[in-house]
């Protein structure tokens, strides 16, 4: 379809103010928080499911690639329009439609910022659990598509465990509803399939999310170690003891130093690593668990364990953790995050391999990650403007993900495959696995127009 005609058609659907097509606007939708870039042909900001349906029907009729985008905080190129086409920016569809405290659900549009929902329900003593570090800017639509995790997902599960139903616009503009407010639903679990599909099977226009009571009490500990291995061993020892804390986060020296540049947390800058261990739930028994954790830390040569005295201290500890990714910009302007997961007991071994890979390619690597889940986030720091460095980074990233896969783990904990890790899917899937995924994709989108070129490598 001629571009001017496409723009005219979209103008009719959403009004000209909500169709962006200048060279500048296209450049500004060519990126997300990853290293990838590709320009769309047009950007559209719809305000309703009906408009999204019409946009999708148009894309279907004209065979134009189309993808959804929230705040563009993706780390693997999920919202980079590699095949051009239409980018649907959900920033205007940011309404909390209903909060049903009796049934403990919230129904929201995809553009709602995760923290905005969390702040709203907390007023009544409820929580929406998934807490990606980017929660203050990431959107529910993005969280659903990437199946986002976060520190508290160790105990409470990732986004897929908190989505009860969806409204999805299919490839031809048809609107379907999956799941619902009832917890058990008949038929295929389409909700589960759509969550984490990286926006490749349809556009989510509504989500019914699960709410829970906020925990009665919370205890946050900062355990300081002089050796990374001791920290890593502590993690598996705690879980082996049968205690599942709300969080078990690790941060190494490099990352702590970067964080302290912007947020004055008071991390011990001479330590090798820290663990942020949070317990939550009923106050009864919490002290016992905390004592057990302190004991395990001691057995693993902890230097010191500090307890956050109050909410303010707790908040500042978390501000540091959640700001870790962005903070590495204090060290080098760009970073690539390798989101690999390994069985917990393999953490020390794989962390050592990460250090070796950093040395091999002469690149600084910081570690900040969901240790309890075995979900590593080595942050390779570099300057995107340096081509040589950039190519070394990509090689190092592949090697790190290979190390994770070889240790019995996987290549994505929560950031998705996107376009960044397409070839690395070979580390964990065989051709039959991949072909089956392609069959599923074709069932939803035979023309391959919905976020094409993502998550599943093209048939070789």
């Amino acid at each position, binding site marked *: 379809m001629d571009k001017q005609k496409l723009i005219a058609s979209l103008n009719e659907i959403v009004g000209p103010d909500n169709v*962006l097509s200048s060279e500048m606007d296209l*450049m*500004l939708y060519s990126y997300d928080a990853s290293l990838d870039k590709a320009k769309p042909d047009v950007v559209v900001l719809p305000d309703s499911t009906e408009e999204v349906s019409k946009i999708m029907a148009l894309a279907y009729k004209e065979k134009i690639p189309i993808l959804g985008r929230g705040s563009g905080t993706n780390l693997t190129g999920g919202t980079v329009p590699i095949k051009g086409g239409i980018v649907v920016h959900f920033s205007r569809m940011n309404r909390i439609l209903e909060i049903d405290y009796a049934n403990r659900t919230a129904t929201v549009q995809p553009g709602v910022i995760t923290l905005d929902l969390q702040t709203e329900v907390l007023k009544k003593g409820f929580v929406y659990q998934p807490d990606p570090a980017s929660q203050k800017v990431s959107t529910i639509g993005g969280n659903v598509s990437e199946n986002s995790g976060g520190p508290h997902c160790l105990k409470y599960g990732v986004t897929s465990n908190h989505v009860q139903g969806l409204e999805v616009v299919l490839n031809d503009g048809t609107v379907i509803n999956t799941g619902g407010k009832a917890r058990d639903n008949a038929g295929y679990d389409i909700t589960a399939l759509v969550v984490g599909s990286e926006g490749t099977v349809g556009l989510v226009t509504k989500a019914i999310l699960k709410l829970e009571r906020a925990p009665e009490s919370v205890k946050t500990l900062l355990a300081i170690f002089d050796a990374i291995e001791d920290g890593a061993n502590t993690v598996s020892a705690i879980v082996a003891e049968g205690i599942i804390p709300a969080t078990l986060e690790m941060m190494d020296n490099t990352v702590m130093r970067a964080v302290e540049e912007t947020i004055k947390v008071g991390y011990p800058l001479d330590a090798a690593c820290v663990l942020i261990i949070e317990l939550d739930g009923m106050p009864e028994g919490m002290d016992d668990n905390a004592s057990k954790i302190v004991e395990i830390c001691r057995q693993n040569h902890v230097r010191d364990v500090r307890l956050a005295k109050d909410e303010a201290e707790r908040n500042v500890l978390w501000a540091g953790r959640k700001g870790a990714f962005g903070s590495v910009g204090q060290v080098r302007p760009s970073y690539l995050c390798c989101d690999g997961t390994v069985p917990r007991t393999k953490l020390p071994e794989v962390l050592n391999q990460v250090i070796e890979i950093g040395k091999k390619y002469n690149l600084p690597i910081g570690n900040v990650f969901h240790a309890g889940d075995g979900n590593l986030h080595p942050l390779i720091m570099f300057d995107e*403007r340096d081509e040589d460095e950039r190519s070394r980074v990509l090689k190092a990233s592949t090697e790190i993900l290979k190390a994770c896969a070889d240790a019995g783990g996987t290549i994505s904990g929560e950031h998705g495959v996107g376009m960044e890790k397409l070839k690395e899917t070979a580390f964990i899937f065989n051709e039959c696995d991949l072909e089956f995924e392609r069959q599923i994709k074709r069932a939803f989108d035979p023309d391959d127009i919905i976020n094409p070129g993502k998550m599943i490598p093209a048939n070789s």
Partner: protein
Amino acid sequence: MNIVQLKKLSYDEVAKCNKCGFCLPSCPTYLVKKAESYSARGRNAITRFAIENKLELNEDTERAIFTCLGCGACTAVCLSSVQTKDLIFQNRECQVDAGFYPKVAKRLVKILEESHNISDEDQEDRAEWQELIKELPEDAFEKETADVVFFVGCVASFFPMVQKIPANMAKIMQSAGVDFTILGGEEWCCGFPLIGAGMPEKLAAMKDHNLKKVAKVGAKTIVFTCPSCYHTWHHFYKSDAKLMHASQLILELIKDKKIEFNKNIKGVATYHDPCDLGRNTGVYEEPREIIKAIPGLEFVELPMNRKFSVCCGGGGNVEMTDPDLSAQVAQTKLASIKAVGADTVLTACQQCVRTMETRAKRSKTDLVVKDLTQLVIEAME
């Protein structure tokens, strides 16, 4: 400035933006417009693409770059501490040289060069606000020498809505026995609007003139009710005099018991941190201490306060370049003030007063907008 110069000046800084997007919800214009070009991340990307010759400066980039409020809220939440406001103003210089900048900016420069004030008024009328003070002999505040120069600023001198600010400040100082003078017709615009307009080099003449006039008075202290004049003197002037914002001087006067409060003030008030006073110059606590010293007044904080304060919509010359956008940002600000249950918003800036009061009137929002100087006078009487 051309692209090569911009690269030299801005490339390393703008490259620190790793596009994490944490600035998006802090950018008042993004929250209103909901498109990337109205966000800090988007504007930094424009600068970067321009430097890398991937994007030409044109009317579109002009619109994006000249609608930044210059409020600095993005940097307050930026984990890489990218100095976006500075980058935007540098980019504006480039836009100006490329010929893509708002017509109103061109007019502004001409007015400033010819009239030495932003309102294109007769300089002799600069002290017109004195008429608001009853029984005052003419030129009472215009002395040959004094300890303190009160730098009034253009907006408070010429906009009737906020002329009460200098009048009240003068009354406070007079009552406290401060030896002060104004420069009257010899006060020139500080040049702040030129920075926002992307023409900082034109500031020199104004700076030289004002420094010379202050030196002639022999003042050791210069006091400002305008945070932007105060900010400009702080960052762009080199003066040996002590620079004080009105709130700092008033607090000193309270502590020295030079002024006393005799009247209970009823109501629930909140405080709006002006960007150029708080985030951009670091004055957060003095205004709060003054408010807390006022008998009877109940005080509530806005959820976004101090360095996270949200701009009123009056910053960055946006009121001139895109009045609708400025008004929409102001409306959002008013909503956040009403949400904390305040019947009064206090601030310490004539521009914030103007922006919020105008918006409150137009939208029929039931809200009293007051500069701190007015609150102080009311409690003193």
